[in-house]
């Protein structure tokens, strides 16, 4: 199966790879996995004044999973929490031209975004 140019580009030049310290102020961490294929994805956001100022990811999985999380971090930067909630896996599918067998990679990325946002919220609430 051939990957789309955009997937290959994100795979070869992943944006925002890396991580923040979990307990750092304003950092939300989402950690998700796909039991069917064993992919693991960690996505982190750094929030200031309700806006995501930075995002990072680490993904262990296929090219589409890496591309999906790389794209997700690009999109997250500069968005407000509310805007970030609205990112859908179908947007990722469309942007990366993912074939049906790789749609679960985009679902994983959406789950990771949601988990990171929830973690940030939880941390903010308990402060």
């Amino acid at each position, binding site marked *: 199966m051939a990957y789309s140019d955009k997937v290959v580009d994100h795979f070869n030049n992943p944006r925002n790879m890396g991580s923040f310290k979990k307990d750092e102020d304003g950092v939300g961490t989402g*950690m*998700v*996995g796909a*039991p*069917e*294929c*064993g992919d*693991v994805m*960690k996505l982190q956001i750094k929030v200031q004044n309700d806006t995501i100022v930075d995002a990072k990811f*680490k993904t*262990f999985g296929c090219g589409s999973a890496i591309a999906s999380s790389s794209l997700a971090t690009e999109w997250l930067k500069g968005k407000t929490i509310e805007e970030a909630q609205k990112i859908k896996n179908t947007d990722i599918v469309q942007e990366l031209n993912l074939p049906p067998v790789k749609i679960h990679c985009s679902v994983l990325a959406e789950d990771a975004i949601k988990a990171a946002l929830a973690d940030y919220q939880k941390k903010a609430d308990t402060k």
Partner: protein
Amino acid sequence: MDHHHTHSTNPRELQMARSMCWHCQSEVSGEYFCERCVKVQPVSKDLDYFTCMNLPRRLTIDLPQLEAKFYELSRAFHPDFYQNKSEAEQAISLNNAATLNTAYRTLRDPIQRAEYLLDLEAGAVKEIRTSPPADLFEEILELQDTLNEFRTADRTSAAGQELRAKLQAEQRILERRKQDMEQQLQQLFADWDALQDRSEATSQARSERDRLLKQMREILSNRTYVKNIVNDLVTTIG
């Protein structure tokens, strides 16, 4: 999956599974060949693999019996025997042979068998929510970093050697962990089968059923994560 077709021992359900021979319209009830016109019948899409192989829906199965049934049906459906038959029969035999192969491969492997049974019992795998094993994920991602370091390192250097030794140690630990998980699964499989054999309809039995499904799902998932990283370790450090 239509569950009405799966328990052929229940006469009421057998009734519902009845259908017609595509050729002579006489009644067939799950047989692979019509009793009247002897034409091959398509294996129903609703038929689960256990029923297809005439096995009880259990996690421990009689492997020689599975193999014998597979060979018996392989002979019955083999496309070679249908070369002089009608196009319809050729198509049916081909489809049946493909279904049969998938059924055999799925049931032969204990892990795939369990994944399949979980699908049957609990619907889509994803519907059983398990909490993601965050510790395991952290470990995997960290290990991936070390692996990347090793991939770019000069393998003959002292640092490269050191990385290799570290990764080899990790590999042994993870392989051990995978074995432990497989042992736990064995126990859960036995518990599941025992529960099925008792076939109680109490609320206690129901909650035991849910507990077993959830635990099996969890360990099967974690095993996949570990298996993947072990494979990566093996191919990278050789």
